């Protein structure tokens, strides 16, 4: 056996083993999502569509819920883009039964108009929610979605601020530390699990479809 043949054979065996391992792990990951008790619940908040919205309005839909803020420099836009890519891979019928909700934790800055503009960049069907701080805190508590304002200092992300309103809103930028989970809520408003920005889109899609 020549060195070349050995090399090709070795690569072939490695590839075969890698495939087997990937199948093994993908089967493990694809197990049916359990119902998570003790987390979640209904809520009603002002929405980017100009009306109040309740989670219960989306019964019979799978809801993908994310907590963030429009001035977030990294994880929010990355995650929303990730969700958007997944949603684009659904059929129109499936898409009609999936709703993305983005709850803003930045009640000082974000307004329904901000959220509407921000989310439109990703997918106009996404709904943004923002309300009084107490109401947002209550929802965050229901979902164990911890967040905290890091500092009131000017930060380098200020250029990212959306300016849909008057200049009166111009103020110093700041950062929030917040949960990066995408909460998956089934058609009976029960939390079934979490995705992250690192969750493969195909896995997300398959899991969401399995809940429809």
């Amino acid at each position: 056996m020549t060195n070349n043949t050995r090399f090709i054979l070795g690569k072939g065996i490695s590839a075969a083993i890698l495939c087997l391992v990937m199948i093994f792990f993908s089967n493990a990951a694809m197990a049916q999502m359990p119902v998570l008790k003790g987390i979640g619940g209904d809520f009603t908040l002002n929405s980017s569509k100009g009306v109040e919205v309740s989670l219960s309005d989306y019964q019979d839909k799978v809801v993908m819920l994310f907590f963030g803020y429009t001035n977030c420099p990294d994880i929010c836009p990355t995650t929303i883009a990730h969700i958007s890519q997944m949603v684009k891979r659904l059929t129109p019928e499936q898409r009609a039964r999936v709703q993305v909700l983005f709850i803003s934790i930045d009640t000082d800055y974000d307004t329904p108009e901000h959220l509407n503009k921000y989310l439109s960049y990703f997918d106009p069907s996404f709904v943004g929610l923002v309300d009084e701080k107490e109401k947002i805190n209550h929802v965050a508590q229901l979902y164990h979605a911890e967040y905290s304002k890091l500092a009131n200092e000017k930060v380098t992300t200020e250029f990212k601020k959306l300016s849909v309103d008057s200049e009166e809103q111009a103020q110093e930028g700041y950062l929030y530390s917040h949960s990066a989970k995408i909460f998956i809520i089934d058609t009976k408003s029960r939390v079934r699990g979490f995705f992250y920005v690192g969750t493969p889109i195909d896995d997300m899609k398959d899991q969401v479809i399995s809940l429809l």
Partner: protein
Amino acid sequence: MLRVIGILLLPMVYQTATAQQADENAKDYLIHASVYQWYGELDSNEDWRQNHPQVTLDFAEYPQSSWTQGAHQILDIAPVSEDSASNNPPAGHQVRVTLEFYPAAADSDHVTGQYMQQLITFSPDYQQVFKVETEMNERDDFESRYIASADTNLIRAFLYNWTQGLDEPDSASLTQWLASDAEVNLAETQVAGLSDYQAHMQAQGLTQSRRVIRNLKISPLDEQQYQVEFEYQWSAINGDGETEIAGIGASLRLSVVDGKVLVHVYTEQYLAPKTDLGAEVRC
């Protein structure tokens, strides 16, 4: 080549972790309760003679082979597999227990322990101990601080029984453990108390309920009272065949009087799901 070995090892690591989890889930709490109860009674006082009148002991751990106060610290409990081919119901069940025994010494806190393996034969319902045979008895070559274990063994026995009773509410009366003024708060806020818990499970169509005990911490408050904290990893199948899971934090205040555990406060609350912290909070 190293990469190939690494790839081959990955599923083995994954399967080992899964197997450990499966072991924990498969732990028979009835057997564990009976073993801890036995050693708890044995270490408390001589009442074990009345509670287990048929028992035959070899007293191998005791000086002069005669019962005295001591502490059996249990290390491992392994049920002995039974002959499934036999048609006759077993006359008893055998359990192999690995433990460290410390004899109480009146004049010193430091004693020499013994590493032991004992084979216990229980009655078919695990309520009576028939026989205890010592299979291994090795004296330590170092001294250890004597820590009494009677109460903690009895508390662990109670916890396994209590948990079994929550998973199968019709199998045992949990109220037998409650003090007359006991306060009970379950995680499900709509369930008023233990008496409603069974009805709640039936109404939800929940079957195969399993509460796995994690992170148990027993802290003495005084000579008789203890604070007990732990977590339940709960799972069950609902009426639609879906798996429901929850993390539940449990907190108890209880007392151990004359070898009996009495619950004064039992409080549960749902815990936030545990996820990878690195993926949890971002800016």
